[in-house]
């Protein structure tokens, strides 16, 4: 393992599991206590985004917009232009999906200090089905100028992300999962916007992951050891601005890369890493994620399995890419 301090029980079968959205709720409350300018908005999704944690403590700084995401994003911009630090809370399919031009013009172009929290991202949303599984948000947001994009890997990192984003000046987008997922990090794990962290050292292949699938990546890396493959695992929580240095060093060291994300393999983390490699250190790469189809209803685990985001597939991709090395 690397020098980074992770959850010591990480590989216990009984590892604690908490939805990353819980970290959002906690982070909001922590921010709210520190800064009276923090305000939270929701579009009729207070509880499931965990915005309700803030609502309970600071009702006078909580704004219910109803089912109107365009208006919500615009209101947030107006609040920010008046010195507030608004957090827009909805599902990742709706923010940015339902208000992309408002995010572009009212927020990013204006450099309005708006924070956008997309809950229920990824296929692990499960039974609600394809319409509710956000698999395109990283791509559609990271193409916008002036915005930070974060994908926390567990509830602890989600809380740190929320607080860091609240303190960062400028537009930001971050996404959460609905399901309980393993706690990977600890309070002591370093976290900085823009800095990818090596969560596990390795020499043969670099697995670059974001979000809760960092867990599957670490498990895959551990299992690959038995096959004689030494895999580095990077928690690339910041999609934008992407940490070119850490990614390129990984690629230089191992000469082979696998990206892992709960998102389309086109344009998201995989796309961002491919761009970094092409411009800095071309290396063979395989992408794990949705392969250009919509999701469907099912249990989260079943869906990750069916759509190829399992430990098994990460291992296969690692083996394939190691073979592709020259």
């Amino acid at each position, binding site marked *: 393992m690397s020098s980074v301090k992770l959850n010591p029980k990480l590989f216990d079968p009984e590892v604690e599991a908490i939805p990353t959205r819980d970290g959002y709720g906690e982070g909001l409350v922590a921010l709210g206590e520190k800064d009276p300018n923090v305000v939270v908005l929701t579009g009729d999704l207070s509880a499931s985004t965990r915005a309700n944690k803030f609502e309970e403590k600071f009702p006078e700084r909580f704004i219910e917009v109803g089912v109107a995401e365009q208006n919500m994003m615009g209101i947030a911009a107006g609040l920010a232009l008046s010195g507030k630090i608004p957090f827009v809370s909805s599902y990742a399919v709706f923010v940015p999906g339902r208000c992309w031009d408002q995010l572009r013009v009212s927020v990013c172009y204006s450099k309005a200090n708006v924070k956008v929290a997309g809950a229920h991202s990824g296929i692990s949303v499960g039974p609600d*089905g394809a*319409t509710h599984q956000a698999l395109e948000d990283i791509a559609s947001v990271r193409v916008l100028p002036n915005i930070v994009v974060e994908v926390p890997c567990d509830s602890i990192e989600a809380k740190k992300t929320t607080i860091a984003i609240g303190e960062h000046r400028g537009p930001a987008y971050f996404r959460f999962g609905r399901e309980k997922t393993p706690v990977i990090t600890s309070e002591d794990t370093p976290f900085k916007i823009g800095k990818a962290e090596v969560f596990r050292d390795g020499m043969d292949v670099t697995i670059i992951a974001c979000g809760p699938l960092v867990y599957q990546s670490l498990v895959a890396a551990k299992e690959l050891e038995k096959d004689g493959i030494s895999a580095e695992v990077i928690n690339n929580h910041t999609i934008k601005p992407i940490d070119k240095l850490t990614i390129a060093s990984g690629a230089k060291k191992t000469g082979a890369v696998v990206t892992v994300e709960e998102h389309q393999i086109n344009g998201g983390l995989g796309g961002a890493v491919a761009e970094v490699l092409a411009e800095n250190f071309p290396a063979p790469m395989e992408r794990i994620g949705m392969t250009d189809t919509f999701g469907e209803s099912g249990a989260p685990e079943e869906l990750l399995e069916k759509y190829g985001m399992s430990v098994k597939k990460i291992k296969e991709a690692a083996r394939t890419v190691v073979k592709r090395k020259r």
Partner: protein
Amino acid sequence: MDKRHSPQHREHTHIGEIEKIANDIRQDIIKMLVEAGSGHSAGPLGMADVFTALYFAVLNHNPQKPNWDERDRVVLSNGHIAPVLYTTLAHSGYFSREEALGTLRKLNSRLQGHPHVGTTPGVENSSGPLGQGLSQAVGMALAARMDGKKHWIYCLMSDGEHDEGQIWEAVMFAGKNRLFQITGIIDRNNIQIDGMTEDVMPLEPLREKYESFNWHVIDVDGHNIQEIIDACSEAKAIYEKPVMIIAHTIPGKGVGWMEFDYRWHGNPPGTLEVPGDPAKKDQAKSALDELRSLRGKITGEHE
């Protein structure tokens, strides 16, 4: 065309019969939700009477030929009430009750958590993200008008989704173009996720809103089958405007402890502890018992 489903035949259908079907549909909604383990309760139960009236007395449709060109269309805009759509489709013969009760929200199922056109016979549009239905109904009405076709397009919407601007864009367009082949039906159940609509985002005066967008509005009791059928008939006689039927419904209708409680918007029986309601483990049975006893009381008094 299947006789059972022809409008001609329906005039003779006993209203009591339809009420009984609606009650069966409610029971099946409970069963399918319990089997699925997730999904929405309040909306589907509240709209069971409207759906039953539509599919068993109003629509010109043929479950054996779901793609029949002349069929009336049902566009469901608030896709989260899919359970009532699926159950009604099954009761109409589009697919089996077994499929409806056993496969909702499961992997590889035709019954997705939110409706998907192309996957499920009888489903006319994909929905889930709110506010997208009426625009599609408008497109269908324009196509029908261009092709000189006479079928009707029923667009079912929730009250909460009227917060979405897209609906008002479509309302404005349909008003301008006098798309009389559209009959909208709003599930005016007064709840959305975060509370009562008039607390979260008030819609009143809703009739005046529609009227100021140049629609004709009819208010009905959404649990009075005869009123629903009559309003749909009246709508057919209104040629100069699209018609919006505001169906005043009780969310969770038929299960006393669910009624009017927005906490039952998105949870099936057996998943939510609510003070005053039966304990989780008893909820499914309590709901079914209550519905069964209601069924016994249906006599057909509306005739």
